């Protein structure tokens, strides 16, 4: 009940705040677009939608389909308003260079849609079906509106069109850097984790070191990498010809790899170290030697845990790669810091939103991989 009321309040707040901002050009500040400035059809639709949600809030029925429909209707209304703005920019003193940015109401609308969907998901009997359907319908809806041209004056899209080639390049660059760093960290970290699980002597040393690295602020670690690498490349011109210098990809890659070590080593260690001794004894009893025990028992049992570590590293690394743009490593951070430098909020968004989406995407992918890599017997024992 309280949850539904909260969702309803969010829905109301969406329309109490300005939904969009219309700017005449890239530099000038814009004017806010409130829902009641729109033709009666739009705000009537908003009012009806809110009344419908209120109705559901106070009725005691748990209808998943209705909540799904509401979230879709909510999104459609937002997109319809956006489409209307495209054609009527002059009403907010903007002409052909006019651009539309998202405002407070829009972000609250996203929260409302999230809440409506999570409510539908919680009360549905078809959990496997609901989320894919919702995502499919929403993506289809957004694409439909893109095709019709509703996004033509959206500021973030304009920023993208100005540098679509560069965007693609930096996006790939970002993914490459993150994957390369986490890949290297996996190659180093998994053996190190296994080693830490086997040798009590070096365990503390390994963990103190990687914990210490993880504590250093990312920007500081990038900074600390620059000086030694710059000195090295000054001393040895060979290194410089290999592209190793104080600024650029080399220090970024080293720092990102160092950062990615902790979750991987820690999880590998936990995965191997906390396997019950009876299982190992049983394996030995069956006549397995140490290598076989490792290959058929320890490795399969700890793989999900190791994958969790790699996932945590990767999600963290995607964020830190954005910071690496400050030392000239490229990636999506380039747009973020350019946007900050030029005070163009939409350029910042062009960098930030893909970074967030990438994090969520890789997070989900690895969740799937973890589920898939868990041995069937273990999955049954955990009950999922």
């Amino acid at each position, binding site marked *: 009940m309280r949850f539904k009321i909260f969702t309803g309040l969010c829905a109301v707040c969406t329309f109490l705040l300005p939904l969009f901002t219309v700017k005449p050009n890239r530099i000038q500040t814009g004017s806010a677009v409130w829902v009641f400035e729109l033709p009666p059809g739009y705000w009537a639709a908003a009012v009806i939608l809110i009344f419908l949600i209120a109705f559901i809030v106070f009725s005691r029925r748990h209808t998943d389909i209705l909540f799904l429909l509401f979230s879709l209707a909510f999104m459609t209304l937002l997109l319809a308003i956006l489409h209307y703005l495209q054609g009527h920019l002059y009403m907010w003193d903007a002409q052909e260079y006019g651009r539309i940015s998202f405002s407070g109401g829009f972000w609250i609308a996203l929260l409302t849609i999230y809440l409506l969907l999570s409510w539908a998901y919680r009360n549905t009997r078809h959990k496997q079906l609901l989320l894919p359907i919702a995502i499919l319908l929403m993506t289809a809806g957004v694409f439909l509106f893109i095709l019709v041209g509703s996004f033509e004056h959206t500021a973030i899209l304009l920023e993208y069109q100005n540098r679509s080639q560069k965007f693609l390049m930096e996006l790939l660059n970002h993914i490459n850097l993150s994957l390369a760093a986490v890949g290297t960290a996996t190659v180093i970290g998994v053996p190190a984790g296994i080693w830490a699980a086997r040798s009590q002597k070096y365990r503390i040393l390994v963990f103190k070191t990687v914990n210490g690295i993880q504590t250093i602020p990312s920007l500081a670690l990038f900074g600390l990498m620059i000086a030694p690498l710059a000195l090295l490349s000054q001393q040895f011109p060979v290194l410089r010809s290999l592209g190793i210098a104080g600024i650029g990809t080399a220090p970024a890659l080293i720092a990102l790899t160092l950062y990615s070590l902790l979750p991987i080593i820690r999880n590998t260690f936990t995965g191997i170290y906390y396997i019950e001794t009876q299982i190992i004894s049983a394996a030995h009893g069956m006549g397995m030697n140490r290598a076989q025990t490792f290959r058929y028992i320890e490795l399969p049992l700890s793989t999900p845990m190791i994958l969790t570590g790699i996932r945590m590293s990767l999600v963290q690394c995607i*964020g830190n790669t954005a910071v690496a743009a*400050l030392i000239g490593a490229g990636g999506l951070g380039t747009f973020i810091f350019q946007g900050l430098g030029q005070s163009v909020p939409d350029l910042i968004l062009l960098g930030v939103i893909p970074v967030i989406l990438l994090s969520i995407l890789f997070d989900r992918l690895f969740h799937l991989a973890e589920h898939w890599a868990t041995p069937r017997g273990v999955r049954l024992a955990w009950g999922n």
Partner: protein
Amino acid sequence: MHGVTKILKQQKLGALFVLVYLLYVALPTLQYSLLSPLFPHLQEILYPRASLLRLFGEHLLLVLLSGISAFVTGIILGIGVTRPWGREFLQSVQDLTALLQTFPPVAVLTLAVPAVGFGFTPAYLALFLYSILPIVRNTITGLLSVPQPLKEAARGMGMTPLQVLIKAELPQAFPAILTGTRISMIINIGTATIGGVIGAGGLGVAIVAGLVRDNTAFVLQGAIAAAGLAFLADYLFELWEQKMNRQE
């Protein structure tokens, strides 16, 4: 005062580190004599626009303000959703914090600029919001792991629900809350360093200025101070956790 001298006796190495770090931050001559041999060809060794001590102060203020408000808000939120009247929100708060934690801290920090603008306020807001997440999660985990019989025994002794919370549940959950606070503080210090880019001041200012002007000495001057601050905070939390473990 007695406690302090005791800690100093036991933790000689740690105390030495703290002392050296504070001296480094406070004394420009020390910074200069440390950095100038490394960069003989550079004209300027120290960031000229502000002293490191000032930047350190700004950094500390930002981190402490956002950290303390996140600590209070996070615990209240965590308590709220584990009470009978807030249980409905438990699942959503857990889902939402899990989702938001996949957002990179730098994304949250820079998103604050389109929302609020440049300066101290957006940095404070972003750090505050991001710091809440680990605290809420750990408060929830801590409170949910309090054994039911313990709560029932407390109720049976005639305690009111508020007394059960304060005298039985919170002390039990405190180690988990402390761990969450430690995680959030370390992230907070790291993210505040990037705050230099959005005009929030702090130690990142020297690093960014060094990067922009291609002066590695500025970068190093700030980076050492920022890394040291993170180690300092981590060390203090370590001491606190050790002290708590000993009391048990």
